[in-house]
């Protein structure tokens, strides 16, 4: 295993599990129960040739990313307030702890009463991501070395330079970890919300229909599409965060 080039290892691991999936579907022998990877990929490629596929994907992508972005901004802002004012931290702590433990389905059903199903995935991604970003940012803020802050204060370092050289490098690992974890959570919860709320033209609606019509290759093809696009978002996010990380190294 040690002789395999590092870049090849994840490809080989993915190939292994695809082989296991193929073998399992051949053993079951009923595509309706377990579609093979070949059939799922073929279905995915055929779906990709339709405008409806891209419309649905864009609809869901836009809604989930909107919920994720709003939750990230709100989570970071609230954590900054909580880091500064103990009262805010004490007030938010039970609310966000409760948000973390409430099942997604409960949120979805409650949200269906309050918002149109078209906007459901925005709200659900928001409420699932918010406590994760808040906790990660607050933890990051608490990693900032107060002695370096004192030094910056004595030397009258500008706010921007203090942010770049003292605050960001200390807080970023924890914030970045929360952002990375929650992008996957946003996709999982957002799509789950769409499956329950069935907004027209969404990926969730397509998954729901695949279930109703027992179209297992469709279910697997859409799931593959979600996995790929969610992984793509996570990769782009990691690249962006690496750039932000480097800001603190240059002064």
């Amino acid at each position, binding site marked *: 295993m040690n002789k395999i080039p590092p870049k090849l290892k994840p490809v080989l691991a993915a190939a292994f599990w695809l082989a296991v999936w193929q073998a399992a579907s051949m053993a079951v022998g009923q595509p309706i129960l377990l579609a093979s990877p070949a059939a799922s990929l073929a279905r995915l490629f055929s779906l990709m040739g339709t405008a409806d596929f891209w419309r649905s994907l864009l609809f869901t992508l836009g809604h989930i990313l909107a919920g994720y972005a709003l939750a990230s901004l709100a989570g970071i802002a609230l954590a900054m307030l909580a880091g500064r004012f103990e009262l805010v931290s004490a007030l938010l702590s039970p609310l966000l702890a409760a948000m973390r433990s409430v099942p997604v389905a409960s949120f979805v059903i409650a949200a269906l009463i309050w918002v149109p199903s078209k906007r459901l995935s925005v709200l659900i991604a928001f409420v699932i991501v918010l406590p994760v970003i808040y906790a990660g940012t607050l933890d990051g803020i608490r990693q900032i070395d107060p002695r370096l802050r004192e030094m910056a204060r*004595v030397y009258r370092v500008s706010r921007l330079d203090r942010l770049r050289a003292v605050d960001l490098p200390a807080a970023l690992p924890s914030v970045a970890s929360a952002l990375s974890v929650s992008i996957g959570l946003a996709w999982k919860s957002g799509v789950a919300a769409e499956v329950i709320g069935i907004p027209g033209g969404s990926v969730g609606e397509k998954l729901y229909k695949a279930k109703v019509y027992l179209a297992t290759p469709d279910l697997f093809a859409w799931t593959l599409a979600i996995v790929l696009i969610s992984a793509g978002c996570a990769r782009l996010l990691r690249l962006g965060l690496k750039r932000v990380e480097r800001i603190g190294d240059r002064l």
Partner: protein
Amino acid sequence: MKLEVRNLSKAYGDHAVLRQFSHVFPDGRITAVEGRSGCGKTTLLRLIAGLETPDGGSVLGVPADGIAMMFQEDRLPPQLTAAGCLRMVLRKAPDREAQIDDALRALGLGDALDQPVREFSGGMRRRVALARALLFPSPLVLLDEPFKGLDAATRAAAIDFARPRLAGRTVLLVTHDPEDAAAFDAERLNLEG
């Protein structure tokens, strides 16, 4: 305006560190602040820098544009290079880069200009912190055991580098070493007496 502390008092819990302490520090001169550990030397610097609130008394004559302060710890952002640590506190000036380069080379750090300070030894970090305090253009300089942990040769080079850069500035030099006061021809202030 002369730096002056009037009736300065500070206690941590039941332990009074400074009691009604008053002193006028000579303008443009170096004062070596001496005394046993725990007698309030660092507390005095922190009160002057505004990092602690006194229980009583006042500090007068502190410049508004910042103080050049070398803490007991190095307090350098670990991811920055030595030059980055200095740039952080030096406002943009046409000769800033030349000043930084000269200072780091004079202090024997010329071979490590591009290295982050987290990779530096304790003595190297101490010298970067000293360079930061010396280059920062404040008329008031607070140095808390600046040569602690330096070997004899490095200490001598650091003193040679510091001497012209402290000339004409009001300096409080906290030290346990009487040789430091002698090296800078400093006035001596013993907080115990």
